[in-house]
């Protein structure tokens, strides 16, 4: 089966600034795909190229096997796009905007009205459908943004940081909505909120400095890239232990939070052997010692900092 999204050698330069540097990426169909990266990594640029708003300097971006281009309107038929900060015509009502979007996709009359109403129900805006968008909260606008992107039943839904600017309730609603889309369409979601990715995404790609750093399923990514991590909790702060560990060659980094030390090891075997000995030698009162499950954040930090 064709990849839902395929980017090959995707490059975008703005003068001397390289936003994308030969990005290669393949997204399988009907998954919720997390597109991760620090600010300035090229996520939004990739999104805009896939949405047909920007032309790449080099390389190709395909959706459903068709190359997307700003100069070929037909190539955008299979794509739904929600920008990072969706802006609407504030003088329109939510229903009018969806009918407008449906009209641009060639729907009219009852078909457009039925689709608008379906989507208003889906995003829980039926009650507010007759209100002007200018008075909507940020969360409502985000949900309407998802609805307008879904009007044409796109094969690929591009969501650029869909939950970044929302309060906890707005975020809960939007994430719940994205969860409900699983299996219906391919959701390609850029974000830097790793908790959202852990909750929603089956597969993840990490980009840094305009290049793909890693791509895999969430669990595979953790196993493949996470360094072993050990957590130690002591009865009182242990500055001597902290200093000693930071000097050990098998320790990559130590993070301290109150009485808990989180040790990222370079050599798992040595860590298992030597860590208990060091704690005992320094006479620290140990409350907890465990080898922790690496989180997506551990993988992210390690890959992006590399």
């Amino acid at each position, binding site marked *: 089966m064709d990849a839902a999204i395929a980017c090959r050698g995707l490059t975008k330069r703005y003068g001397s600034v390289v936003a994308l540097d030969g990005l290669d990426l393949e997204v399988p169909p009907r998954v919720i795909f997390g597109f991760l990266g620090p600010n300035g990594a090229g996520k939004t640029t990739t999104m*805009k190229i896939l*949405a*047909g*708003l*920007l032309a790449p300097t080099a390389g190709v971006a395909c959706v459903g096997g068709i190359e997307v281009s*700003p*100069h070929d*309107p*037909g*190539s*955008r*038929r299979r*794509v*739904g*796009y*929600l*920008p990072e*900060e*969706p*802006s*609407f*015509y504030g*003088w*329109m009502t939510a229903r009018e905007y969806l009918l*407008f*979007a449906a*009209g*641009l*996709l*060639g729907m009219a009359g009852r078909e457009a009205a039925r689709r608008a109403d379906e989507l208003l129900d889906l995003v829980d805006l039926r009650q507010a459908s007759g209100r002007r968008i200018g008075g909507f909260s940020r969360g409502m606008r985000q949900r309407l*943004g998802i609805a*307008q*992107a879904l009007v*044409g039943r796109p094969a690929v839904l591009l969501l650029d940081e869909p939950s970044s600017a929302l309060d906890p309730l707005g975020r809960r609603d939007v994430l719940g909505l994205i969860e409900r889309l699983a299996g219906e369409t391919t959701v390609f979601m850029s974000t830097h909120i790793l908790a959202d990715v852990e909750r929603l995404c089956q597969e993840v790609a990490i980009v840094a400095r305009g290049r793909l750093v890693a791509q895999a399923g969430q669990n595979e990514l953790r196993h493949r890239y996470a360094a072993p991590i050990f957590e130690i909790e002591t009865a009182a702060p242990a500055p001597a232990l902290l200093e000693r560990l930071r000097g050990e060659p098998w320790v990559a980094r130590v993070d301290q939070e109150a009485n808990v030390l989180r040790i990222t090891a370079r050599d798992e075997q040595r860590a298992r052997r030597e860590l208990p000995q060091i704690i005992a030698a320094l006479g620290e009162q140990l409350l907890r010692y465990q080898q922790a499950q690496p989180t997506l954040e551990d993988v992210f930090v390690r890959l992006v900092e590399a």
Partner: protein
Amino acid sequence: MAIVVLLRKELLEQWRARRLLVLGVAFLFFGLLSPVTAKLTPELIKLAGASAPGLVIQIPPPSVADAVAQYIKNLSQILPLVVLLATMGSVAGEVERGTLPMVLAKPVGRGTVLAAKYLGLAAALLIAQLLGALAAYYYTQVLFGGLELGAFVAMNLAAGLYLLVILSLTFLASTLVRSTVAAGALAFGFWVLLLIVSSLPRVGQHTPPALLAWAAQLGTGQPNGSHWGALWASVALIAVCLIAAWLHFRQEEL
């Protein structure tokens, strides 16, 4: 058809954002004011003269030609500025507010989006000028009489073409820059440049502002010489503005 959907949106926006209202009221106001000003100006001057003993002011009685001259003056000075201010944000305003990406991510061409915008603005201008012209015609007939309808229509067509030139220059400016204020400043610059070129000897009579002199002659039923050069120059300038706007907008990175 995407252009019909977009044009409907443009017209609805003109209505709800009160742009049509502003244009309509401005044209209506100056349409009414022109014959009234022509009629009352001599009276006002006489009143001013009365306060200075010994000063005798002799003014010929106002005629329909004065009403037409006043109407053309408003169409050439104040109303182009109103058109500029009302339309300068047509594209730049949308870029500024960020409303275009979700529209352009749909399967519609950028040329279609621009065409709908321009047609919407031209329609608003047409409606506004029609209102102003009707008001001016009616009051001129009431106050002076003797205004020939055919001549008045011809005059409005010539003046309307000039306003369409101003609209096209503003539209181009709005496409070239990313803020409404900058678009307004650039459009004003284009207008001033046009007026400077029109004041040059020999060249001036073949520029769009010469349409206004022609319009005045048509309105009084005294055409004096051929102004086809100005007409074709206006049509060409409108075409250049629209093509340049499209060439720039199709490459615009949003």
